[in-house]
């Protein structure tokens, strides 16, 4: 898998995780979704495809900017 494919798939995963995090009312699930997003941010960061200093500052893939 080349770097561009990795970036595309990771962005898709982040959108799904944002939905889980924002819509699920179970703290355990919401926190796991948040932590999974941290790792996704890490993937993008290590490929130079994400410049937000922390995942919390990434543009919200689940709608609101």
């Amino acid at each position, binding site marked *: 898998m080349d770097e561009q494919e990795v970036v595309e798939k990771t962005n898709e995963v982040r959108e799904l995780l944002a939905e889980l995090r924002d819509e699920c009312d179970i703290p355990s699930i919401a926190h796991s979704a948040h932590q999974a997003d941290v790792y996704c941010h*890490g993937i993008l*960061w*290590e*490929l*130079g495809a994400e410049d937000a*200093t*922390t*995942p919390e500052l990434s543009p919200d893939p689940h709608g609101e900017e």
Partner: protein
Amino acid sequence: MRDTHRPLYNERARKSKHWNEYMETMPRAELDALHLRRIKRNVEYAYENIPFYRDLFDSANVKPSDIQSLEDFNTKVPILDKPDFMELQEESENSPFAGRDPAGSEHHLYRFQTSGTTGTPLQEAMSFPLTMKMGECWTYGFWNCGMRPDDRFYFAFPFGTFAGFWSAYWGVRRLGGVVRSGAGLSTEERINDIVDFDPDVVVMTPTYATHMLERAEEMGVDLSDTSVRFTAHAGEKGPHVESIRNRISEGWGADVFDLYGQSESPFLGPTMDTDSGGVHPCEPYFYSTVIDPDTEEVLEENGQRGEHVITTHIPGAPGLTLRYRTHDIVEVYEDPSEVFDTDITWKFFKGGVLDRTDNMLSVRGTNVYPRALEEIVTGVPDTSNHYEIHVSRERGNDQVEIRIEADPSVDQSAYGDLAGQIQQEVRDAVGVTVAVNVLEPSELPRYELKARRFYDHRETG
């Protein structure tokens, strides 16, 4: 039933030479473009959200839009020093991050502080993403040194308020290695535990590595006969001093590696690479320049020596950090592949940290760095690497006294000759006369974390 076992890495990943080849071999132009993009984003954020930085930029009459190149950044943004951050911390009533944390304190997961040996401790706070990224810096180094996920790591230090070795733990967690903590054990118990646990890697300060060798010898244990293949160090510059590296390597029968870090800055986390005699700054996480400490001019030619200045791309322990002077003196290679046998494109500091700008001594008009003295005295046969350098000032001159333990095999009657030999070697090498006091083995204190080697009595008289 279907076999559900999944390996941690596929075969190609496991055989990879690099932890992240894409980033570690990125051409310099692309790396610099990435640095500029991340810097511009952080400058804009800092100016809009952090009063400390807005005031700094305004006082220099600089706006974020003025930063359109790395040269703009290096010439227009003022350099910061530790007192700037200490002042900010005091204004913020000792709150960690002191207003420079973009994520907000609800994300803080750990609280640490610096040792405070040079003043009030600097408070540090870390979020989950930061722990992951701090660990990642170690992992780049672990992988490049040949450590792999099936290796077993022994931690021979206490977990306390000092962040340094916690990040090593986060690094092993990222790698996927096995952790064994000897935190609550005595030195003797740790030695026995190492014999029983069969670790591949032991993580500890260089000073403690030699202390363990002494204790092991007393216990009749030969640590070079154990399973240990690597020793990984941080906190002191020992592994880059040849005589100390050789003592650790021979005593443990292991390859010796170093990680260059500094707790006042978020983290440097360069890769450990003592094979080629230096370290690479971990470029995905910070932008590194080397300046002339007097003129602040950026030095870009291979082999130039100057002071390391860092800019962090993510908020580390004290938050977003722009152009922070480390006071570390390094010899920089902007393109190491031109000089060394490496395909890593990241900058390279040959010899690691050579010394500190704030440690320089002036002995009868001659500038002397303690690191030079350390290399000389620990290289003299029949000495140990347990030593202290004391500096005082008399009539405007720095006076230096070296206290060093003799090797246990040396008879006390020979201490005078040994002191004379050390004095002569220092005089031959750096042209100054220092006082030398040879001590018996175990007279100087032993340390589990950073050893105190340098005592500056000049300010207190």
